[in-house]
């Protein structure tokens, strides 16, 4: 029997039982849709994050921090429990190291920012503007106003989302406005609110995302002001700009810094962070795909169940086919073809449905971030996920859908092919 005849015979059998075939296919559709939706969202998310991180932080930078892990434990955590504190003036030590262009200390504290009737909780970051501009020359750029290179103490620079939190032109603060920064000093008893009135000198151009470098939803003040306002010489991290982003340079400078501080600091390279993120995503992706795959397995069991029932109903038909001289392997092929058709249709509809699902989910996610967090404020960026359905995902889903259907159809198909013609014909 010709392959095309086998398929058309199988298709005819499926068409006869539309509802049953439809429900069986639905199982595959759901399984494949879940896989496609989850994979395309994770991949879209990963692409968005990686892209924003790459623009947000230059690959020729290192981040020096005290132990505990700068980014989800990337690298060593040896200094985690020590009393070691990173001080602002350690940049002088780092600047001496060969391969380092410059370094900047970052002091970061959550504060209330008030302007008029409104207030937000935001991260206030104290940095040396000159150095910061040098390191993040593509992102720490003013959209309006100017970033002063030798700033007065009361100067502040705000991110785009601080200026325009709702993205609708309702301005929270603009250049030349005064903002009140309130910090609760809990290191003394009773805790006291320290207030500092800043003068907005510049609004940054929109950066997007939530990079490690400059962010849309932060307020920047000069280092000296941060030191006196927060009453500390400690900094959260030191960003180091390297001469280049060669692996050798990254490694030698990392080692030199580590040595200079007696192994009490942790040095993380941007590249390492990116790698860590992408490896985390791989795990998440695998995990989610695994969960979705379970639903496909359930669909497979459904296929098997339906085929066994249909096998009983069609015993007589199989007997007729065999009496007409059909070979066992052709009977097997007919039943497997039915599974291939169900799997194929399920996969095609599943991919389409999954794509729709991913886009709907992406719509829900998008528009989150700072603005959605509303008056409460939040230190977060805002980003849009574009679900990515790669050809690999599509082909994989197609193959997986068909494979699961066929694997679960193997046993019923084999049983059908093994029926004895005389018994099958007598079957009532």
């Amino acid at each position, binding site marked *: *029997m*010709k392959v095309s*005849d086998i398929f058309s*015979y199988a298709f*005819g*059998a499926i*068409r*006869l039982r539309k509802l049953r075939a439809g429900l069986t296919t639905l199982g595959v559709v759901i399984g494949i849709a879940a896989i496609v939706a989850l994979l395309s969202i994770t991949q879209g998310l990963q692409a968005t994050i990686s892209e924003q991180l790459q623009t947000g932080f230059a690959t020729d930078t290192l981040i020096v921090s005290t132990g505990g892990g700068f980014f989800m434990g990337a690298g060593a955590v040896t200094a985690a429990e020590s009393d070691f504190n990173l001080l602002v003036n350690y940049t002088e030590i780092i600047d001496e190291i060969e391969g380092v262009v410059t370094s900047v200390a970052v002091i970061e504290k959550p504060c209330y920012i008030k302007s008029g009737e409104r207030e937000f909780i935001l991260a206030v970051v104290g940095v040396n503007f000159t150095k910061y501009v040098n390191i993040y020359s593509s992102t720490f750029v003013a959209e309006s106003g100017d970033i002063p290179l030798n700033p007065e103490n009361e100067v502040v620079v705000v991110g785009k989302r601080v200026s325009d939190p709702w993205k609708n032109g309702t301005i929270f603060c603009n250049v030349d406005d005064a903002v009140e920064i309130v910090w609760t000093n809990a290191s003394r008893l009773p805790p006291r609110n320290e207030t500092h009135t800043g003068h907005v000198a510049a609004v940054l151009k929109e950066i997007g995302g939530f990079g490690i470098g400059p962010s849309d939803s932060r307020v920047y003040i000069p280092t000296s002001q941060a030191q006196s306002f927060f009453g500390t010489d400690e900094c959260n991290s030191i960003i180091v700009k390297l001469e280049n982003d060669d692996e050798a340079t990254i490694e030698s400078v990392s080692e030199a810094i580590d040595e200079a501080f007696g192994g009490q600091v942790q040095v993380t390279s941007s590249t390492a962070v990116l790698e860590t993120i992408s490896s985390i995503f791989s795990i998440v992706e695998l995990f989610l795909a695994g969960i979705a795959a379970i639903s496909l397995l359930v669909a497979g069991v459904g296929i098997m169940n339906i085929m066994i029932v249909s096998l009983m109903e069609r015993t*007589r*038909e199989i*007997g*007729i*086919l*065999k*009496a*007409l*001289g*059909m*070979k*066992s*392997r*052709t009977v097997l092929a007919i039943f497997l073809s039915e599974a291939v058709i169900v799997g194929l249709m399920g996969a095609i509809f599943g991919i389409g449905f999954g794509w729709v699902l991913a886009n709907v989910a992406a719509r829900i996610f998008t528009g989150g971030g700072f603005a959605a967090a509303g008056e409460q404020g939040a230190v977060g960026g805002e980003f849009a996920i574009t679900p990515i359905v790669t050809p690999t995902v599509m082909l994989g889903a197609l193959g997986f859908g068909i494979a699961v259907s066929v694997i679960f159809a193997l046993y019923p198909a084999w049983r059908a092919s093994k029926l*004895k*013609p*005389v018994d099958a*014909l007598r079957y009532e």
Partner: protein
Amino acid sequence: MTILITPVLQTINLQKTYMLGKIPVEALRGVDLKVEKGDFLAILGPSGSGKSTLLSLIGVLDKPTEGKVFIEGVDASTLSDNQLADLRRSIGFVFQFFNLIPRLTARGNVELTMAILGLGKAERRKGAEELLETVGLKERMNHKPAELSGGERQRVAIARALANNPKFLLMDEPTGNIDSKTANEIIELVKRLNEEKGVTTIVVTHDQNTALQAKRRVRMLDGLIVEEKVN
């Protein structure tokens, strides 16, 4: 024994024992049968005489417990399942309950036999139309079995059985499930096919009238052939 002309079908000491639970039932107890080309043989017998068992053995749908079936001199017991399937392609089955595929049209059912043979679409279409014309169903060939009468269904079944140009037609109570007037028409058709086209035919029946239309008849009782007559 010298066989001058190889018979289309020959059985030698054919025996079949079923296990009905734990009790062995001897359905056939040694049947010797010879059918030459162009013959029209009726196998008569009451129910339980073993005629259906004999039919499934000579149709190579089942294997005998003892004895041999030769089809054009080929010993069926030496063949693999695949070769048996091939052998069945040269036998035309007609069943009492028609056994048509309900979802296929009359033509589709006839074409199915040819599709199993691996024939192309155009060839199948032409062949099926010719066969349905032969059995007098040209006008009804796009109807499904449910839309056809019993006699019409049996005609489709005969056309289907002829579709692989069989060595012989094997009919199991072909008139058992239709009224006597239609039954006569069917028998007339079979007779005509036998006389005009030389289709070798074996009919299993318990109906005396049908049997009398054949060239030859044998009577079975308790798994043995007890009487052989030329009409």
